[in-house]
């Protein structure tokens, strides 16, 4: 039997898809934020200016403890090592060190910054593909853990060991197929190809290095906990192969970082509460894989270098609406005082965007542009907002990971950063830059001094 006919129509939904799930709707009650940890947004801007990064010590500590507990409750020998590149502001690192995190650094600069902050060498893990030999020497002298990235570094470390007349304990970084794309195969030695085993043979043959650890970092913002299960099983298998065939004792398995924060990746339209697995799910897979594949009584140290998952949600950026525009296609756009120069992760995420006051009027899809005179400066190209008056503050989150390290001094000065302490105190932890920060290193040859003829 034929069906009754209705003219075919397709209608674009004005509000976004997420309405179905109850988030993403511009509900005033949800998207207005007048304070951060009890401190009025208004007051923060009055005192410290806009834009302004704001970190919450309470959130940072809570998140760290949540992640830590997820693992320490499931495995008896765990170390957390703070990934400096994720956020190396002194105050942030100091908080995490006070929680017991060691330092994970990937350059001589990060190494020096950790040392300057008071981290002893033997509480530093030195990773990365580029370690100048002078920095390797310092790291060896100060007892840092070093995870080797390539064959040249094996030779470099042997040279250092001979020079210092010591036997040096080292780890090697591995890369492997865990189902995660892209595979970070440019770092360390590949497992499946036999390269990793070659590295072990090479180390054994040299006789001055002692292999005591395996390191791996499978990627970042990993949404599939079972990828870690594969990683751990492969690491354990390889560790036993090394122990049985070469007589080394693998004391630690460093599985890197990569856990996601509750942020919304571009291209992922599910809200983070749905799309992002809980830290317990990761811990369950990782510790389960360890306990099921380790030999009885053997509990090598599990090292985690989680960055983003720990600090991202502790950071907010307050930014101010400077102007609004109607685009030729009819969409509304706003120009903000902060853009991709300070919000590097805008290239990855659709942030949570809240406004500092109640605004009446229908929400519509808007574009948020930063202040740069550059086409790439788009904070978000699709966010539902009511008509915002000039001067409205937007509170953008989570922005605690990778922004205050990857921000650029480009076109504008970098803004200040404040920390709200657990007792509600507000402390400046990085001053806003001014011209002197930028010109300090410049030298103008005398002959080029600018003079205007009258």
């Amino acid at each position, binding site marked *: 039997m*034929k*069906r*009754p*006919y*209705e*003219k*075919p*129509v*397709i*209608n*674009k*939904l004005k509000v*976004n*898809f997420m309405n179905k799930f109850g988030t993403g709707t511009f509900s005033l009650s949800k998207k207005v934020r007048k304070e951060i940890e009890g401190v009025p947004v208004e007051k923060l801007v009055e005192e410290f200016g806009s834009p302004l990064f704001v970190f919450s010590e309470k959130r940072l500590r809570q998140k760290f403890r949540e992640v830590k507990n997820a693992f320490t409750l499931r495995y008896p020998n765990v170390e957390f090592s703070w990934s400096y590149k994720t956020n190396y502001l002194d105050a942030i690192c100091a908080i995490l060190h006070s929680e017991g995190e060691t330092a994970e650094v990937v350059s001589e600069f990060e190494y020096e910054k950790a040392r300057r902050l008071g981290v002893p060498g033997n509480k530093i893990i030195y990773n990365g593909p580029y370690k100048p030999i002078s920095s390797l020497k310092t790291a060896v002298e100060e007892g840092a853990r070093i995870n080797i990235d390539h064959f040249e570094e094996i030779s470099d470390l042997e040279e250092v060991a001979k020079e210092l007349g010591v036997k040096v304990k080292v780890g090697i970084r591995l890369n492997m197929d865990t189902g995660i794309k892209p595979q970070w195969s440019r770092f360390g030695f590949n497992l499946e190809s036999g390269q990793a085993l070659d590295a072990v043979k090479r180390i054994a043959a040299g006789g001055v290095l002692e292999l005591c650890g395996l390191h791996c970092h499978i990627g970042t913002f990993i949404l599939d906990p079972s990828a870690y299960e594969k990683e751990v099983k492969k690491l354990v298998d390889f560790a036993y192969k090394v122990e049985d065939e070469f007589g080394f004792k693998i004391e630690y398995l460093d599985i890197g970082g990569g856990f996601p924060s509750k942020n919304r990746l571009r*291209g992922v*339209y599910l809200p983070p509460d749905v799309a992002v697995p809980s830290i317990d799910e990761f811990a369950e897979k990782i510790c389960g894989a360890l306990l099921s594949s380790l030999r009885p009584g053997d509990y090598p140290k599990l090292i985690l270098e989680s960055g983003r998952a720990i600090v991202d949600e502790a950071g907010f950026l307050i930014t101010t609406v400077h102007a609004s525009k109607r685009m030729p296609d009819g969409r509304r756009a706003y120009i903000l005082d902060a853009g991709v120069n300070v919000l590097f992760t805008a290239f990855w995420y659709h942030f949570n965007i809240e406004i500092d006051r109640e605004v009446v009027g229908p929400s519509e899809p808007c574009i948020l542009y930063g202040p740069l005179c550059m086409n790439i400066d788009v904070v978000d190209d*699709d966010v539902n907002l009511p008509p915002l008056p000039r001067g409205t503050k937007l509170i953008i989150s989570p922005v605690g990971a990778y922004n205050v390290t990857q921000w650029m001094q480009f076109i504008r000065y970098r803004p200040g950063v404040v920390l709200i302490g657990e007792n509600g105190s507000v402390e400046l932890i990085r001053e806003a830059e001014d011209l002197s920060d930028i010109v300090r290193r410049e030298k103008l040859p005398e002959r080029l001094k600018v003079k205007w003829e009258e």
Partner: protein
Amino acid sequence: MGAIERLAISKNGFVFDPATGNSYTVNSTGLFILNLLREGKSEDEIVDALVENFEVSQEEARRDLLDFLEQLRVNGLLEASNV
């Protein structure tokens, strides 16, 4: 991959374009056509299918199909060369 192929289409007429984040609703006739377009069916084949399955004349079906394709193009879901 064309826009049509990448769409997520639910049985109740909810359409989501993962490339843009836009979502749409289609009625049952629209859904019927979208699914045939995804199978790579030609305009003539779709018109025939409409007439076969719905109480509609060949003429009306053809006119409405053209209109529907226009709606898809306006929404960026169909390239001019697709059909």
